[in-house]
């Protein structure tokens, strides 16, 4: 619950040009869809985006990596978090995840940008356990030994350090290596380092243009090679898949199926092992990675259903923590979840089995199951074959679903707008599929709770109920209520 600036306000404060020149934090926030930016930042972001269309996707992938890394570190038993180069507060911040299960555990946000510091002070530092520091991460020794850090962090316990694409903004290689060495030394045993870093590995052709576009707006980036990024981890032990494309690190994450080049960055989560003799450390370092023992940690009751495969789990923190189940679940594209569940509802309402329909669209049984669970997309032609064939959907509703599928690739991850003909029926299908739920209604009694004569009146009429608005339902009301009996 404190905020401290280690930088000189007169030298590094809000100068006359602060709002007229682009800053990396605001450009990044703009790329994430945030509003903390000015014309200079928007110009810079648009120039970069014009040079390479992957920058926006890469920014979103990077943010997701960091947030999912928080859940990963929590599962390893780490309770203290240090977010270096945290950037502007966004819709979900690190402490909001940790406080789900550990409300008062420390989270320290660090950024050198005076705007970030100001926003952090106003939005974050009133939360229990949260500290906001304004500091230069290249002056790592000063940062780690400052009074505020010593007060916030207990060095007898492990710390999860998060560095989400912050080092590319530090072109000075020597200073970066000094800072990382100081950080690794400071980290207590059992700590984790989650780091992502821009690379030209997949974008050798466009990266110079991107660098030039940033430079034109006074920003300088230093993409690094895979080997250079690996060096930043020093002797820490890589976890999970090791250093890999950012979107691929969390294998059940929302971007795991994207091509690697969408990430435009490498990411890794590494663990500082417990202290051991230099001989054992040298032996471990020389051992090929594939021979390292993998520990498969089974989820406990109420936890995520997918397994975590980790190398060198810290002994003290290996006990699973009761992380809210949802954090560990894969973030599938929303459009696929909706489409898949809609198709499954249609199939089941016609009494068909997966085997009855998968051959029609030329996919295997398991592929059809994945389509219906939302973990795999389907083509417009496949959808058309099913809707016009065994599912007997009207031509107008088919057109509506066509429009839905057409829009899907253009929607951001996590969002899907269905405005095509038949959207209430598709929503009703999802309500049918649900096994639990909560509803909040500000103006109208929810259509789902209306009497049988007025199903979903709210979706077709301006009035709370209207006997004229009897939208065709995909199923009879008794079946719906039997479903919703489970729901509430």
């Amino acid at each position, binding site marked *: 619950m404190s905020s401290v600036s280690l930088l000189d306000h007169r030298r590094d404060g809000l100068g006359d040009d602060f709002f007229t020149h682009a800053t990396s934090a605001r450009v990044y926030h703009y790329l994430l869809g945030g509003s903390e930016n000015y014309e200079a930042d928007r110009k810079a972001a648009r120039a970069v985006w014009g040079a390479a269309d992957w920058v926006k996707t890469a920014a979103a992938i990077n943010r997701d990596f960091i947030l999912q890394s928080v859940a990963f570190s929590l599962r390893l038993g780490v309770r203290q978090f240090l977010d270096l180069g945290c950037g502007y507060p966004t819709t979900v911040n690190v402490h909001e995840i940790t406080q789900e299960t550990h409300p008062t555990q420390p989270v320290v946000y660090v950024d050198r940008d005076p705007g970030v510091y100001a926003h952090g002070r106003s939005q974050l530092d009133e939360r229990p356990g949260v500290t906001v520091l304004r500091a230069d991460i290249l002056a790592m020794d000063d940062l780690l030994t400052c009074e505020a850090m010593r007060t916030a962090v207990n060095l007898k316990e492990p710390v999860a350090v998060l560095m989400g694409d912050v080092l590319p903004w530090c072109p000075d290689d020597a200073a970066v290596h000094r800072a990382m060495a100081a950080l690794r030394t400071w980290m207590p045993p059992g700590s984790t380092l989650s780091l992502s870093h821009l690379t030209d590995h997949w974008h050798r052709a466009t990266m110079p243009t991107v660098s030039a576009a940033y430079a034109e707006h006074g920003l300088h980036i230093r993409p690094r090679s895979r080997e250079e990024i690996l060096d930043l981890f020093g002797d820490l032990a890589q976890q999970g898949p090791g250093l890999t494309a950012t979107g691929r690190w969390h294998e059940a994450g929302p971007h795991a199926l994207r091509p690697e080049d969408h990430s435009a960055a490498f990411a890794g989560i590494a663990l500082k092992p417990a202290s051991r003799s230099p001989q054992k450390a040298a032996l471990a370092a020389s051992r090929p990675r594939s021979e390292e023992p993998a520990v498969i940690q089974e989820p406990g009751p109420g936890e995520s259903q997918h397994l975590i495969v980790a190398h060198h789990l810290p002994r003290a923190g290996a006990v699973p923590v009761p992380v809210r189940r949802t954090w560990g679940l894969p973030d599938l594209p929303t459009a696929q*979840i909706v489409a898949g569940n809609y198709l499954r509802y249609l199939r089941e309402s016609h009494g068909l089995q997966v085997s009855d329909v998968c051959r029609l669209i030329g996919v295997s049984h398991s592929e059809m199951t994945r389509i219906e669970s939302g973990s795999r997309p389907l083509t417009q032609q496949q959808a058309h074959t099913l809707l016009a064939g065994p599912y007997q959907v009207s031509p107008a509703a088919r057109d509506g679903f066509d429009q839905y599928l057409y829009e899907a690739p253009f929607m951001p991850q996590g969002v899907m707008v269905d405005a095509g003909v038949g959207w209430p029926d598709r929503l009703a299908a999802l309500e049918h599929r649900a096994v639990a739920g909560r509803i*909040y*209604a500000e103006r109208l009694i929810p259509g789902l709770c209306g009497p049988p004569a007025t199903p979903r009146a709210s979706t077709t009429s301006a009035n709370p109920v209207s006997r004229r608005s009897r939208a065709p339902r995909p199923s009879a009301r008794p079946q719906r209520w039997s479903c919703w009996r489970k729901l509430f």
Partner: protein
Amino acid sequence: MVVLEEAVLMRRHSDLDVWAEQLQHLIDAVQAGRIRVRILPLASFVHGEIAHLSELVLPDGTRLYAIEESDATYRSGLHTESRLGTFLDRVIDAALPEAESYAYLQHAVNEALTAAPLRLP
């Protein structure tokens, strides 16, 4: 759990028979144990920009959030669960207890059955 803002009960339908029918249906559903209803007082100051939000838990555990307006906006994933899930938590915390909410519903249906129809002058 269905949370209705108090404004829902105050904004009666011009056809009071229809309105009473709908409220009675809601009461029947509560009595039968099919749904649980909580009323959010206008004075609670917990309001968002969302007029109609459904949180649907699908069989595989995925939480899907549907916002109904003139179309349906679906949201899911880590960010959404934190933002919209927390919003629903706050709304439920601020709502009247179930017993009080049920009494309020009964009062509303009695009013609808006895009050004169609202007509424009």
